[in-house]
């Protein structure tokens, strides 16, 4: 076992959302001052291992059963070991696809849409798990054109 000397992971540009709307106070100091904490960093929430994390775009509607819709943005971490039930970016015969991984008697990749037939992985197919999806960024408010 080799002991490493990690410096920790450096995140990219940080996007800070202040937790306290701390108004300028000319008279008495704010009673909240003692309770001030660091701002919540959304990037830090979504990205735990920056060098291994990539964003992907969803193309298609066959994963709505797990709350993933067409055009959503996925946070994909390559450093994670895939577990049973994970949504993964999988390379199936050279195609980039989004599937749900099941690790039963034999590993399988499935759609998550009740209207779609169960996808059985053919035997002689070349499959590679590219990365594990950790978050889905789904925009609720429509963009006005």
């Amino acid at each position, binding site marked *: 076992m080799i002991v490493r000397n990690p*410096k920790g992971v450096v995140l990219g540009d940080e996007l800070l959302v202040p937790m306290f709307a701390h108004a300028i106070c000319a008279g008495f100091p704010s009673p909240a001052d003692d309770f001030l904490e660091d701002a919540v960093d959304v990037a830090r929430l979504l990205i735990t291992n920056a060098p291994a994390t990539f964003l992907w775009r969803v193309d298609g509607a066959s994963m709505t059963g797990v709350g993933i819709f067409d055009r959503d943005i996925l946070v994909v971490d390559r450093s994670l070991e895939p577990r049973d039930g994970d949504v993964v*970016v999988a390379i199936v015969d050279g195609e980039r696809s989004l599937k749900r991984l099941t690790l039963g008697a034999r590993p399988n990749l499935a759609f998550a849409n009740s209207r779609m037939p169960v996808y059985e992985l053919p035997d002689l197919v070349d499959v590679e798990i590219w990365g594990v999806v950790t978050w889905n960024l789904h925009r609720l408010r429509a963009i006005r054109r």
Partner: protein
Amino acid sequence: MTPKAFALIDGNSFYCSCERVFDPGIAHRPVIVLSNNDGCAVARTSEAKALGIKMGDPYFKIRDLCRAGRVAVYSSNYTLYGDMSRRMNAVYDQFATDVEIYSIDESFLDLSGYAPADRRELAQDLRSTVRKWTGVPTCVGIGPTKTLAKVANAIAKKELDLAGVCDLSDPVERAIRLDRFPVEDVWGVGRASTAKLAALGVNTAGDLTRLDPKLARKPLTVVGERIIHELRGMACLDLEMVTPQRKGIAVTRSFGRPVTTLDALLEAVSAYAFRAGEKLRRHGLAASHLTVFAHSNLFNGDAPFSASMTEGMIEASSDSLVLIAAASRGAQRLWRPGAKLAKAGVILDDLVRAENVPAALIGGRDREKAARMMAAIDAVNAKHGRGSVTSAAVGIRKAWQTKFEMRSPRYTTRVDELPAARTG
């Protein structure tokens, strides 16, 4: 003092490997990446090498071969390669405290703190972590000097049974391997010196270690002695952790098609001057003069034209608008009607730290105001992509712009160019 240990890690066919990470359809196909303006091959996978494609082959000469061999051809996508390089170096930081980024795809790591017996396993661990996290395959060379780490890396690349790691720490194994290593592949030995070395009976790196260092001065200049000491295992070079202050900045491009009007040349050099200003500001530097150059294609029979002009500025500046004004003056002075320009550039040397710039007595500008405006422009461009805000002098259509006809998407840095995963 404990002996030093250096590792050199680099990406295998780095640019091609970056393309393969996001385009798995080309995993088993030959891949090449072309230089700026789709000029010549600058990166090749082993499958492309096997087809006979050489480093630097002009694309127009190998186009038919590429088509016949089903080669995947890409324009260079430096935005993507730079981001992948940044990620790889973030992984290296987890394995070593001291890392020197030597080039976009090569870094030296100081492994002196690890027990010699652990280093090979550590290197394998490093390779598999980089592969898993970023998708890029690498090779690692280890040695008591940087020059030996470079040699070891080249051996790891060539000899596939080494599984990507070669350690030249052991003197016995090192002597055997150096005797088989061609001297022209040693770091710092140029092609010109190879013939001179052969005349002295030096054909391998092993031969070079047995040469009297004083005799090496003639074929290898003053660096020759250093190369011999380094090959013998005496470290002369340490990691360069801090990039030395840049002495000059150049922004030069080949045109997508020949530039034949002064207006187009003015647009192009304005764009280069704007970009040069961005680079200056990022490094906290200022320039006191600026050189513009332009020349015709020197190989295709066009009327030869080559000229350069240097313009001084009243005070050293990093203000893109000041640089554009100087570049435009220079371009106007060097322009000759009828010229067919293939390439132009803007060069800034004699750089000073921005805070040390003496103010001009007469004709100086309101520097604070200009600095605020440039900072605002840089902030907008950082957020919305380079070129979102620029000077109108740069033009809109940019007919002169470099060709990147086969560039892949900037997968990792643009929200509108993310890789897509089909759910079906």
